């Protein structure tokens, strides 16, 4: 049963080989990187199949028993997240290669694989200190990817991103120290055993650790009040990297789900009401910030980045309820919003590279204006939550799952008004980019053969390889909508397993069988 560690080991072995051996040969690096990612996808499918029967698989490194050794834990949730990561990675990688982004700087593929290693590790680990270590792995790779191909704005946004995340990492360590001092363990299953034993009146330190950890994960998940780094970073990152970062915010949401459900969740007298109480209002404000940002953005990339903030708000509203139905809705919306955000960044990249910049102002239309407009339209209605794509069903599930009297008013009005503002923002952006540009061709042609019109005729046609990743992401979104029944049945089981704390503890802490 060594399959569980492969999503970590495979990219970890491949990355140095690409970085050292293939650094002068981009073709070779591309082949190795694609092969590795396809293999990762195959492994993730295998793991999802393995986890689908509902058992919690535990991989003990060095066969040390659980609270003492390091464990990787594979249940439905981690299998789903690893599958999501590898599918997204493949889509992003095809885009990066076909648009030539990977050749605009050094070591794209090595960093990409290290990034995948960190993300998969964070999803699979059963130890909260190892969660910190994998966070650092994925962050240090993301620092390199963030400033890939350089440039003034990108370097400055990258510096800001690094500083923000280093401060977050320091906070993570403070939280871990507090948690260890009050419980004496950092294994998630062992914590899930010990934290409920702490009576409510003695839980002050654990409550501090709960909130500190939530702030750390909120930094990753771009939750108010620590969401401010995201628009600057995502809008200045290379587009394929921004698309890959769509999974990074979900790492934060996953960590909140895992830690604040399994360890501090229902059943721990000291901490059970804490996470939801703070998470819910913060998520509502996050939706509002995302919606106003989309409405107020003057450039395309920040507009998409703010729509990511808004979608994280919707996701975390569902997470904050901490019930099985709401978690099912959150997971469905998480899968949807990952592909929707990635799809938007990829199509925006195709459009922006054919224009003078990403400012939302009419310019001469590019060739294939209709194709880009159609793809942008599809991605935008997915993100805004309009039928027929899965965004509609995702938001419907979230709305349906929130029925608590104190929450329903806030959640429904925030999500519905937020969606409306997002639709308006995207409609305005799309009409400026694709419709108004067709209107200005005629008067401009009168001015004689300007450089602009010559440039627009010469703007390169999008190849099949460049459009395919966007189409693929849209196909996933369509598939999610068509197979919403089976998918949400699987996710129902996933969230039931997540809330089955005793089962998780028993599986992880069971004695090692002799081999």
């Amino acid at each position: 049963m060594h399959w569980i560690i492969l999503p970590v080991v495979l990219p970890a072995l491949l990355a140095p080989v690409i970085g050292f051996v293939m650094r002068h040969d981009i073709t070779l690096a591309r082949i190795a990187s694609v092969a590795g990612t396809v293999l990762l996808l195959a492994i993730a499918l295998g793991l999802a199949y393995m986890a689908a029967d509902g058992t919690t698989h535990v991989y003990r490194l060095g066969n040390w028993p659980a609270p003492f050794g390091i464990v990787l834990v594979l249940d439905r949730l981690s299998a789903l997240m690893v599958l999501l990561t590898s599918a997204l990675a493949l889509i992003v990688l095809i885009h990066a290669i076909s648009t030539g982004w990977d050749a605009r700087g050094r070591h794209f593929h090595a960093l990409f694989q290290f990034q995948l290693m960190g993300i998969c590790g964070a999803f699979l680990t059963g130890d909260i200190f190892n969660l910190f270590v994998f966070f650092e792995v994925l962050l240090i790779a993301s620092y390199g990817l963030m400033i890939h191909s350089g440039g003034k704005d990108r370097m400055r946004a990258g510096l800001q991103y690094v500083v923000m995340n280093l401060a977050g990492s320091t906070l993570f360590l403070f939280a871990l120290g507090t948690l260890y001092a009050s419980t004496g363990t950092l294994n998630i299953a062992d914590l899930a055993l010990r934290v409920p034993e702490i009576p409510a009146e003695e839980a002050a330190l654990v409550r501090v650790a709960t909130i500190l950890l939530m702030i750390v994960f909120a930094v990753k998940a771009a939750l108010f009040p620590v969401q401010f780094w995201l628009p600057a970073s995502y809008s200045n990152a290379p587009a394929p990297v921004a698309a890959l970062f769509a999974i990074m915010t979900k790492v934060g949401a996953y960590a909140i789900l895992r830690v604040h459900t399994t360890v501090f969740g229902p059943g721990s007298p000291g901490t059970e009401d804490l996470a939801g109480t703070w998470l819910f209002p913060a998520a509502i404000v996050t939706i509002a910030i995302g919606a106003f940002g989309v409405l107020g953005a003057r450039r395309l990339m920040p507009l998409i980045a703010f729509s990511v903030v808004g979608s994280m708000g919707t996701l975390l509203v569902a997470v904050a309820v901490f019930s099985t139905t709401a978690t099912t809705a959150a997971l469905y919306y998480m899968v949807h919003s990952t592909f929707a955000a990635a799809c938007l960044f990829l199509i925006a990249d195709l459009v922006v590279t054919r224009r003078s910049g990403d400012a939302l102002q009419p310019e001469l239309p590019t060739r294939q204006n209709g194709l880009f407009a159609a793809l942008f339209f599809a991605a935008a209605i997915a993100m805004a939550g309009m039928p027929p794509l899965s965004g509609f069903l995702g938001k419907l599930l979230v709305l349906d799952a929130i029925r608590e009297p104190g929450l329903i008013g806030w959640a429904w009005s925030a999500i519905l008004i937020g969606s409306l503002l997002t639709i308006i923002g995207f409609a305005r952006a799309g009409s400026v980019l694709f419709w108004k540009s067709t209107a200005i061709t005629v008067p401009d042609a009168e001015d004689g053969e300007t450089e602009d019109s010559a440039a627009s005729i010469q703007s390169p046609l999008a190849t099949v390889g460049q459009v395919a990743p966007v189409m693929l992401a849209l196909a996933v979104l369509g598939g999610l909508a068509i197979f919403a029944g089976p998918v949400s049945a699987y996710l129902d089981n996933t969230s039931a397993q997540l809330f089955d704390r005793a089962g998780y503890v028993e599986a992880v802490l069971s004695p090692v069988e002799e081999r």
Partner: protein
Amino acid sequence: MEIIVASSIGVLTAGGVYLLLRLRTFPVILGLALLSYAVNVFLFASGRLATNLPPVLSPYGDASYTDPLPQALVLTAIVISFGMTAVLVMIGLGAFLEADSDQIDMEPEENGADAANEGSA
């Protein structure tokens, strides 16, 4: 001893946060270094303070030992924060050479970009 350790963590953290809020590359790097020192000492203290005790169980029945796990955690944290500081220095240097400014926040940048857009429009 508790008061010395606690107050030194407090002073280091306060200094680190102050420097972090200066929003210039060099103070921020120093601030993050101070914060990482503070968190390392804090992690040490999370295994309870003890002096002159070995981090291993003695086979001769002497039961007094200090918790070895925080020491392993601190070692990991030191290595990671050291590497991260090096990366931060390089990226900070790159950003300074590219933009000719050591500001961390992007505010003047945005205005400049907008002004350029309006100029071209």
